[in-house]
């Protein structure tokens, strides 16, 4: 006997909100991406717990795909951040200020 499903879901919710906080409150594109990773991970935890609750392997299959999507998204996202950094010399999500300093157009 292990824990009830709700405990796992509560853990997942807590992790998700931490990830959301990281995304929303850091003025840094890389940290935003990190927050998204945390959120995806929290979803994976929830899926695994549900899979155990209903004794199906569906949940675990979905986690495989979450992993694949996370990988894809991180690689593209980081490449995009790199492009932005090369244009504006900063990873500030406030594009207006960054472009203004560099002298680029909106």
């Amino acid at each position, binding site marked *: 006997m292990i824990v009830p499903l709700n405990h796992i879901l509560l853990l997942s919710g807590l992790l998700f909100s931490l990830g*959301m906080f990281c*995304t*929303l*409150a850091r*003025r840094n594109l890389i940290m*935003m991406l990190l927050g998204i990773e945390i959120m995806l991970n929290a979803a994976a935890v929830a899926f695994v717990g549900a899979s155990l609750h209903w004794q199906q392997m569906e949940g675990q299959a979905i986690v495989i795909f979450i992993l694949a999507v996370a990988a894809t998204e991180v690689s593209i996202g980081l490449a995009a951040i790199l492009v932005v950094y090369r244009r504006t010399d900063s990873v500030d*999500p*406030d*594009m*207006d200020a960054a472009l203004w300093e560099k002298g680029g157009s909106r």
Partner: protein
Amino acid sequence: MQPATPLPNSLIVTAAALLLPLLAFGVIMLATRSRHRLSAAISIGAAGLSLLAAVYLLVQHWQMQAPLIFQAVWMVSGQMTIPIGILLDPISLSMFAVVAAISFLVQVYSLGYMAGDPGFGRYYGCMSLFAWAMLTLTVSSSLLQIYIFWELVGLASYLLIGFWFDKFSASEAGKKAFVMTRTGDVAFLLGLVLLWLQLGTLDIPVLTNPATVGAQLSPGMITLTALLIFGGIVGKSAQFPLLTWLPDAMEGPTPVSALLHSATMVAAGVYLFSRLFGFFSLSPTAMAVCLTIGTISMLLASTMAMVARDIKQVWAYSTISQLGFMLMGLGAGSLFAGAFHLITHAGFKALLFLCAGVFIHHCGTNDMFEIGRQGGRRLKSAVVCTIIGAGALSGLPPLSGFFSKEMILGHLLDSGHPVAFLAAAVGAFLTTYYSFRLIFIILFPRDSGDAPPPESHDGHHHAGSEWPMTTVLWCLAGVTVVLGFFQTPLHDFLARAGTGFQAATPAHHSWLPVAACLLAAVAILQAWFEYGRKKARQIGWVEQIPFLADLFGQRWYLDRLYRYLLDTLVYRGVSRLFTANDRRVIDGALDGLGRSTIGLGRVIDWVHGGMIQYRLMIMVAAVIGLILFIGWGG
């Protein structure tokens, strides 16, 4: 109307008489405006046929015992029906005949007077419009219908006063006339609405029946509505204080002045009073007010006529004065006296105006001194007819004016208003004085030359078109002479008008005619002394007092008063309020709407654009809301 039976003759005849001028107006204005002779023929033909119809109706119904009413329902609105109809009774028939006759005569006269004017067709179109409106007004069966045609008559007056519209003073005069009469009509409309609310109907027979009205309306309400309707009469008949539009209305052609502003349109006010005599006599206050205003107007206008130099203005002031005199008669309680004087006045005042028209047509100027100097006395017909007309106006026997004036003076004496009687006597004196002043100035000019007359008023001068004018003059002169002897038949005819008519004739004061004639003789002598003698300086005793001369000349400064009131009350008071409202409230609201839209756009721009994290926050908040909705609401 009973649709099953065939239409009565009277209805057909009356309807034809009313619709023919309207048809003439339409045809002329739409089709034949450029064809002068054709337009004149159409208009005069319609007027002539209306006159024949009027005479026929008068003869047919001379012995009528009860009024004939033909009514149909025009509009229905909920519980209220608005009727349209024709009321034929002695009062309306006599007025109908008068209007038709004078319309016809004046239109014939205009053949000569207006010949060569480029607006000839338009003139006859407007004349037909006026004829239609005035004729229908006289035979209207309900007060609302009277009001509608009252306004239409005002429209015709505006069109005709401003006939020579490229002359600035003429168009201004038209506007002034319309606005001033309209001001009176506001009161009329208020009274009308009040009556309708209280009584539920505006039919004239109902209104003049003291039983029904007295039962349903309180005396205070009767007085209020009577006074309000009297306001309309004050405007239309140019009584004090709305009298300054009539002298300015002389800017129109002289036949127009003869028709509208002496005999018919301004008489519509007095006619309305006599129409509603039964209603007005229920309220002693209204009768007293009528008497007072009539007295004031009579005296005021007479004083203004004493110093006037323009021949038409003298007769205009005289019209105001005589209308006041009629109102005095009516206000003193005698329907017949007022109505009779209305009829005789129509005759001789039109005559006087048309004679003035002949003078103006020949001498090209309105100034009576100029006319005299240019040999106006050589126009024999005009001079003789002017003397006849002035005599009637002054009340000299055996002309028609003598009889009607006697009636009113007698009634004033009997009715227990000694002040009014004295005022009427003074007014009669002044009337005679200024009429004969005019005659003597024309007959005996100072430094008269035989200078040829300059360009006449319209720039064209046809020496040949004389016969329409002189023929009409002699017709009217004849009427003036004989009408007085029809007093008794007319009295009996109008006595059959039924309710509201006081059949009692006053006791004849035998000293009254003698006294009146003596008064007139004194006035003529004074005028002769000042203007007619060989050595007279042609300066009246009033003109020698500068203060009085200014006062009378400036129309007792009434125009100045109105200008002042307009400036302070309207321009500086109300206009400012409305301008502020316009700028701050209406424009401000619209600008505020625009500004708030832009502000809203800025807010939405902030929500949609800007830094990505704010957008994310809003997105997450929306998702949380969605979760709540699905979980608890939905």
